[in-house]
């Protein structure tokens, strides 16, 4: 019995020790030379919209703050998925998105209403990824493929001519849904179905 007990104690002590070593290694990794790489990895998880809704000037500054213990629920564009990945990466508890910083929505893209644009270039200055094209007193336009949907150009526009429109991915052959989704595929209105077309029109 005493042998068994001692065995248990040894196993328990060993496992505690190894856990401690792992923890220590992680701390060392963070504090040591690998700090930069560590921030890069955190940054890799963030959605890179550069919207600043977290209160930092971009995704990387937020990543830096995260590495120093900032809350992980401040990124609305990333939403729950990013929070989950951050909680895995940083070994922190997963918490719901902080509504102070915004709510999760589908990806949006900025569109400039051309008729209303006065060419003030204020949105161009606001854009963090240089996705708006134009010159002073010329109509501006958004390069759709480069727009991150960060919302930063909407606020400075003096004539409020920028709309955020949900990004639409084109219908594609390979976009399958999982079984049990409400509708597997939504058909275009005009497609006559099997059976429908047989009634009436002679062929």
């Amino acid at each position: 019995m005493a042998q068994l007990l001692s065995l248990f104690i040894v196993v328990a002590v060993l496992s505690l020790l190894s856990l401690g070593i792992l923890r220590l290694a992680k701390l060392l990794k963070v504090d040591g030379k690998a700090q930069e790489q560590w921030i890069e990895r955190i940054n890799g998880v963030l959605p890179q919209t550069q919207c600043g809704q977290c209160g930092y000037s971009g995704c990387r500054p937020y990543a830096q703050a995260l590495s120093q213990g900032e809350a992980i629920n401040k990124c609305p564009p990333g939403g729950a998925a990013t929070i989950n990945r951050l909680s895995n990466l940083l070994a922190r508890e997963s918490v719901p998105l902080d509504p102070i910083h915004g709510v999760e929505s589908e990806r949006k893209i900025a569109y400039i209403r051309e008729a209303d644009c006065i060419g003030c270039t204020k949105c161009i200055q606001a854009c963090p990824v240089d996705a708006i094209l134009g010159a002073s007193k010329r109509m501006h336009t958004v390069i759709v493929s480069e727009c991150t949907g960060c919302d930063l150009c909407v606020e400075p526009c003096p004539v409020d001519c920028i709309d955020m429109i949900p990004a639409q991915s084109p219908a594609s052959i390979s976009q399958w849904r999982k079984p049990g989704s409400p509708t597997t595929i939504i058909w275009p209105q005009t497609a006559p179905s099997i059976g429908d077309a047989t009634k009436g029109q002679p062929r």
Partner: protein
Amino acid sequence: MNSLIRLSRRLRNQAGYTRKTRPLRRGITPPINKSDSLSKAIQKLPLAKELVLPLRVYQSLTLEPVVKEGEAVLKGQVIASLDGFNIHAPSSGTVATIEDRPYANPAGLYAPCIVINTDGMDRWHPSISDRASENFNERSPYALIELIAEAGITGLGGAGFPCHQKLHSATQHNIDTLIINAMECEPSIAADEALLQERATQVVEGIKILQYILHAKTCLVAIEDSKDAAIKQLLSAVEGSDIEVVILPTRYPSGSEQQLIKALCDKELARGQLPASIGVHCQNVATSYAIFEAICLGRPLVSRITTITGDALASCNVEVLLGTPVVDALEFCDENALEKTKSLIFGGPLMGVELANELCPVNATTNCIIASQSQTLLKPEQDCIRCGFCAQVCPAYLLPQQLLLASQQGAHEQARAGGLQDCIECGACNYVCPSHIPLVQYYRAEKAELRNLDAMASRAQHWQQRFENHQARLDKQKATALDRRSRALRMRAKAPQAPIKTDLHDEQIKAPSSATAETSAVLSADQAKSDIQAALARARAKKAQQQQSTAISDKPHPKSEEKE
């Protein structure tokens, strides 16, 4: 019993067993179900009134039409083209319209199509006879590839990849083995088998052309041991040539390219690896036949042999013009077929595409049309019991039950690590699943999600790069501005009487693009000013309205709250 039959076939077809093969050990042996259609000779489908030719040939490869509405066309005339690759009119008539029509795809999308009203004469274009040449040896391999491209030949077996592109990329490598795939391992499909039974000599002629193009040392024709009549025809057709017929056991999916290469050459292709990289090139028998027709007879790809089967009609093999609406093919087999048909499948029962519309035209990859009387062929889904039957049959050596779990739970990284992207969607796991789980659909959905994730990741990386460039540019501007200011200060210190430059406003330092770019204004200053005033007023009114509405709805947006 099965093994006895196999043994007797093996003894009878000794010629095919000279080569050491490693046949597929996994996979399934569903009922073959081909004898009905093979009992009759290949029939020619009567000319349809309307032919619909989608301009989208392979995935997103879309051709440009070269004919206009109302133009008269002859059979074999080019009607659409892109980079030397053509679509031809399958019959003579007039171009009725060019519009979006349904075509065969699992998502039920529409594609731009050329619609031809046939005139019933089926007259060939005069250029056809000029192009025909008895001796392909007189032309260079590259000229032949060009001819194949002009004839619009795509792979007639599976995905429909343009044949000339495949051949062209193969010529960049040193090909030592040419494999002609006559396996046709899916149940119900008998188009290739019928083709070999009736036109084996022409097929072999096409194979010789391929051999000539690729300079392949070895040329193998792989065929399943259940196709007795086809093997006989093939063996007599290859006599005297260095083409070797290899007979493999009947097992699905042994006709899949990767699995076939493994069986014949004992080499496994990794995901995304091209067969050409290991010196192998695969072509389908029907493609070789099309190549024969294109080179020796000058005829472009305008028809193919298709099996029409299913419990709604009498099975048969037909030669059908591309662009024929499915409904015409069905009604040829059974007058009441359309009323009886509840579901329509293009391709075999294991990998085919279910159609939403009976007006979809037959295309080059339609090797089979299945018209079924029942709406759903599948039994209801039950829970996974992890029996592992799926893992026993998976030809890609995956663990389908684990992948199912990962895709059901949305554990994307686990699905990726488990090799989901290596799944060839053959459906063998689905076939044996005792719980009738639509595994392939789960995998397809999860693959789509993985693709979306990858796209998102690469987008994020791109944005990060742009953001960094943006920051770097701003920093540089700031630095130069500072530099200029300090230089100006130094200048002033040196020569205090010199005029002081004061055109450096803060705004300019931030973003010189907004600086006084005083180019000639199109509008006169007054008009512009009034326009701007009007716009500002509009914006103010709108903002006020918004605030009002938010106040009413009593649901302030967090952003607008911040503003206030």
